[in-house]
């Protein structure tokens, strides 16, 4: 039989309203002191996992990482996304932000250049010595690259393919990852058979197990200059400064080099660029 429903609606409404207020008030949104949020280009996925663990160990500061394509972060930051630091895979984006006065003046720092590799699964019999030209092989169905529209590695990949004169031939086979990390995931999972990736991803243990790679000659594409900048909207500028300082230590740079980045700094002075870091 039926059950009595009493008029409990009014207290229920009060309860709901209280719950909403409580949930909105119990606000873990503001990061605590000594905690920063970094928008990091996805080629840093593995290097930064290591690096931020060390930062936390040494300074007690904690770092929240958001990985994605640099172009996407660029537009998010323009719309007011609350990051403290931006590690871009392409120096153009931080420079544009600097021009729009969205960055903390004098904090732009070029820390490395990224490298492109051609990656094939272990089972593939292709001769990697032929370089990008092997991608024209008819047995290859899908080639994963980063989206050239907003990922610097994607743009570099297209430039390298054009340099090798194969872009028009392989255009139909390209599978675009939202960022270089997604392109890596496409090949790692076997959904694409080949890929042009960041060296920093190809050296990661998870990728090493499944395939082999060859570097694309760096003169075949414009340099992928990586740069970091502190954002003006940051509430944790000191912590962000401390993090940048930590990155500049020889130990950190050595770690970055291990992950396949070419370091351009005071130590590796011979690779200096015109726009020297400050």
């Amino acid at each position: 039989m039926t059950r009595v429903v009493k008029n409990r609606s009014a207290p229920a409404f009060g309860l709901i309203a209280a719950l909403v207020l409580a949930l909105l008030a119990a606000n873990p949104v503001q990061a605590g002191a000594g905690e920063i949020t970094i928008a990091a280009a996805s080629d840093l996925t593995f290097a930064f996992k290591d690096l931020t663990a060390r930062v936390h160990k040494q300074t007690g500061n904690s770092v929240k990482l958001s990985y994605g394509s640099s172009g996407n972060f660029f537009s998010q930051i323009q719309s007011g996304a609350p990051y403290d630091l931006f590690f871009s895979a392409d120096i153009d984006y931080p420079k544009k932000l600097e021009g729009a006065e969205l960055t903390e003046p004098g904090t732009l720092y070029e820390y490395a250049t990224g490298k492109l590799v051609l990656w094939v699964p272990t089972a593939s019999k292709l001769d990697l010595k032929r370089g990008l030209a092997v991608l024209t092989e008819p047995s290859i169905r899908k080639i994963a690259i980063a989206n050239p529209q907003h990922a610097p590695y994607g743009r570099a990949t297209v430039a390298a393919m054009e340099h090798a004169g194969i872009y028009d031939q392989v255009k139909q086979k390209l599978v675009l990852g939202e960022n270089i990390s997604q392109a890596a995931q496409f090949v790692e999972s076997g959904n694409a058979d080949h890929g042009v990736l960041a060296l920093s991803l190809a050296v990661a243990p998870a990728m090493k197990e499944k395939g082999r790679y060859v570097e694309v000659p760096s003169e075949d594409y414009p340099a992928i200059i990586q740069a970091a900048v502190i954002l003006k909207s940051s509430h944790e500028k000191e912590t962000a400064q401390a993090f940048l300082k930590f990155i500049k230590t020889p130990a950190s740079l050595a770690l970055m080099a291990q992950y396949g980045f070419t370091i351009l700094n005071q130590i590796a002075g011979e690779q200096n660029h015109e726009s020297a870091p400050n």
Partner: protein
Amino acid sequence: MQLSVRIAKRLSKSFSLEAEFDAPAGFAMLLGPSGAGKTTLLNCIAGLLRPDAGRIALGERVLFDSASRTNLPVQERKLGYLFQNLALFPHLTIAQNVKYGISHLPAEQRSERMTAMLESFRIAHLVDRKPSEISGGERQRAALARSLVTNPTMLLLDEPLLALDVVTKAKIVDDLRIWNAEHAIPIVYVTHSPQEAYALGERVVVLDAGRVVGRGMPNEVLAAPRHETIAQIVGFENVFDVTVKSVSESQGTMLCQMDGSLTEIDVPLGHVEIGERVRIAIRAGDIIAATERPQHLSARNNFAARIVSIRREGPRVILLIEAGVTFEVHVTPRACDELGLAEGSPVWLVIKSYSCHLVAPRE
């Protein structure tokens, strides 16, 4: 306290309601075939529908007046409305249902009123039941109690007793009558049953196709129907179109020729001219069948005729008899047997002039 209603409401291109009637304290029966606009009229009175024009007043209290732009909301009309399906709240107990309309009273008073009401409708033992757990008759009583506990200034009933047997219904109506002897409010009772209208009504309003076609005391309205609709509702099985041939002022009758035959019939005098066409209605039970030519009778109309068909329907026999036109005649089974009536056999029909009722044709 008298309810006066005069409203117009257009519902569709083909149907509009234009009704005017008064209902003093007591039962006013709103009678009409389905689709006549009875429920619409009730909803206008209740304030659930807004009339296009007119005025509704209860004594001094104006509920609706298009001229002064008065339109009291339902909540303020202080009425009881018994819906066709009763509309008891299924998730509430009978007690909660009955208390629903008196929530403004203090709890103690509420319980007192509720108990008193349930007792006077003999359902005090059902307080904690749900509507789905009690019988149909009990539900009617509960719904009535719920409406009346608010001390409404009028009561509207939309065929609420439709599904009940005669005995149960009579008991409920008796209790309602006892209640109203004390409260004396107008009770507008919608029905399509003339028996019910006869049995309950102090007044009858007959509605057809959105128009009031008759009103007055039940015996006046129903026994001498001046409208074809009423004739049909009340059970005048024979309705004929006739043409007036001659008028006898001294006798108070006129002779009419029935359409489609040469048969002439003597009927009571009406306000009509010779040559005019009128409609008459005759109850099947008012016609006498005889196997020999009747003599020495006061009845003016005697027709030689022939039985077309005989059909038994329960405790009565329905004869179709041809006398230029076809009459429906009802006789008892014994009369049928003793006279030895059979299909095809010749009979005489006897009809009193005063059994012929002039009715206005339906527009």
